[in-house]
């Protein structure tokens, strides 16, 4: 059975990718099971989808814990524990990462025995949550790597899954996807299927007798305030709003009040200060700032600048 997991952000079309690939397998005569994994299914938030394909009916269910192929549409997700990209990856796994960086860099960075293949990233659009075609490209690359889906069948599958969006969109997606398909030709067949787990040689589940605990502990309740701050919703962000303090007129009551999440604090000097741990990148502040002092740049660009020591928050007056 092929066990394939897609990782992306809400809005990047991972559900579509899983469906295109699922349909392609199906057209090639495979039994298929595909599903998106809904979490907080929000734009920008990490989500995943999966596809299982086999010649006989697929009986396995749920999250894929031992993937043969892991596809990552947004490489900023790889280092994010919450995204779960590295779950269950071992030497058998092939990782396909949509990235500017090389396979060698990733291999070194992740220190993994998995095989890493790069799908060269296109950067037509600033906002990664709006990357068009990324779902189609990922699906195409996957299809090629399995070596059981022909180019023509893939094209048919994509057309079928996207036809409700109109001919133009289908054509655009197809052109770009097939480029990705072709780009994988040095690696076709690298993805290997895996079989059933062994019932003789297996890791015993560490079953416990769940201890009784008093209602004070075991009732569903939270006895602390504001624990939500531990959730870094800043990870959803694909565009980062940055205040240019030279233009900022200090009217914090505008941006700070309008931020739906309350992620703009006011400093002691009376200036707005964006909490990047939690800012979701909705950009309401950018739209509402009267002197236009807030600019949005792609999050991955902001991160790169951060890593290379560039301070981007400007000098606070």
């Amino acid at each position, binding site marked *: 059975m092929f066990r394939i997991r897609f990782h992306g952000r809400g809005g990047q079309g991972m559900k579509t990718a899983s469906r295109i690939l699922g349909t392609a397998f199906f057209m090639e005569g495979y039994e298929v099971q595909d599903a998106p994994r809904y979490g907080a299914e929000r734009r920008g938030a990490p989500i995943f989808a999966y596809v299982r394909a086999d010649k006989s009916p697929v009986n396995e269910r749920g999250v894929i814990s031992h993937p043969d192929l892991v596809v990552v549409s947004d490489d900023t997700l790889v280092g994010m524990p919450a995204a779960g990209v590295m779950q269950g990856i071992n030497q058998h796994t092939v990782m396909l990462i949509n990235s500017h960086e090389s396979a060698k860099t990733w291999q070194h960075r992740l220190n993994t025995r998995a095989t890493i293949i790069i799908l060269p990233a296109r950067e037509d659009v600033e906002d990664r949550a709006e990357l068009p075609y990324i779902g189609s490209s990922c699906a195409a690359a996957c299809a090629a790597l399995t070596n059981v889906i022909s180019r023509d069948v893939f094209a048919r599958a994509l057309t079928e899954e996207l036809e409700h969006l109109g001919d133009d969109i289908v054509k655009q997606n197809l052109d770009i996807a097939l480029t990705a398909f072709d780009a994988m030709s040095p690696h076709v067949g690298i993805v290997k299927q895996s079989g059933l787990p062994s019932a003789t040689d297996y890791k015993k589940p560490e079953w416990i007798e769940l201890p009784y605990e008093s209602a004070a502990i075991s009732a569903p309740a939270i006895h602390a305030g504001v624990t*939500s701050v531990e959730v870094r919703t800043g990870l959803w962000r694909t565009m980062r709003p940055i205040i240019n303090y030279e233009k900022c007129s200090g009217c914090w009551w505008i941006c700070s009040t309008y*931020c739906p999440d309350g*992620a703009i604090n006011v400093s002691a000097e009376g200036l707005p200060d964006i909490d990047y741990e939690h800012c979701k*990148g909705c950009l309401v502040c950018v*739209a509402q700032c009267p002197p236009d002092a807030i600019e949005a740049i792609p999050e991955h660009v902001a991160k790169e600048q951060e890593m290379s020591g560039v301070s981007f928050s400007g000098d606070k007056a």
Partner: protein
Amino acid sequence: MIKESLVHFHRMKDMPSSHLLGTGTPMCAGCGGLEALHNMYDILGEKTVFVNAAGCMTLLSVYPFTPFRGGWLYTAMASAPAGAQGVRDAMDIRLQKKKLSEDDNMEVVVVTGDGSAYGMGLSATSGAIDRNLDFIYLCYDNEGYGNTGQQYSAATPHAAITSTSKGSHGYPGFKKDLFSIWAANRPAYVATIIGAESLDLAKKIEKLKTMKGPRMLIALAPCPPGWDYDPKLSVEIGRLAVQTGVWPLKEYIDGKVVHTKIPRQRKPVEEYLKLQGRFKHLFHPQRDEQGIAEIQARIDAYWEKVTE
């Protein structure tokens, strides 16, 4: 009621500079409902117990995370006002028996979406008003069953595309007038608010803090995924809702309805509609002049009758 020194909201500058509602909740980026809620929470403060019915905001608190400094109780879709009744009564009993100090007293605040408020929650709401329950009710109205994928509700406006009204003309029904239904029950206070008009919102919260009895609020909550627009437009769309007259800002108090903002020259409603994908069919592939005109006419008819 806990009396505090009154903060007077005259200008935007008077808005609170610290935000009490915790960040890190899974509401969508640009959520108009969250914006109204966090503005309200800043002013009401942490001596509040929020009682919730099923909807988007139910996910504010997912174990072990909560954005609240005070209380939160999730009940069920139809019965949040009944839940509020129990909490309020219990606290009053304990206050009376001196088992709860006045310092530890809390304001009970129901928060539900339009799905509950306009529909199956109406019975419990009506009952709570009948009983003159001393509580606040915030309905964040994103004009559909948002949490399940934006199906139409009784709050959906005419012609809106929703996932159960995908026909070429959108939703055939008309938005229910919840404000009037609540007002007919004669609670202490009813008001419409919106996050985009923060000052108006702040004044109303400040006012109802000093009152007792059922104090009811409907906040129009622009919804990026449900209404189909880029999240950064949330405040602009909210403002246009007021400027076009789609969302009248008004209060019911002492038996009368008074508008707190009367747009002098209303912007044409299409400026509001055209920013939202749910109304796209009114403009593409060609303009539906009749459809737009009908919507405009209904808004004009409303404002014709408004004297204050």
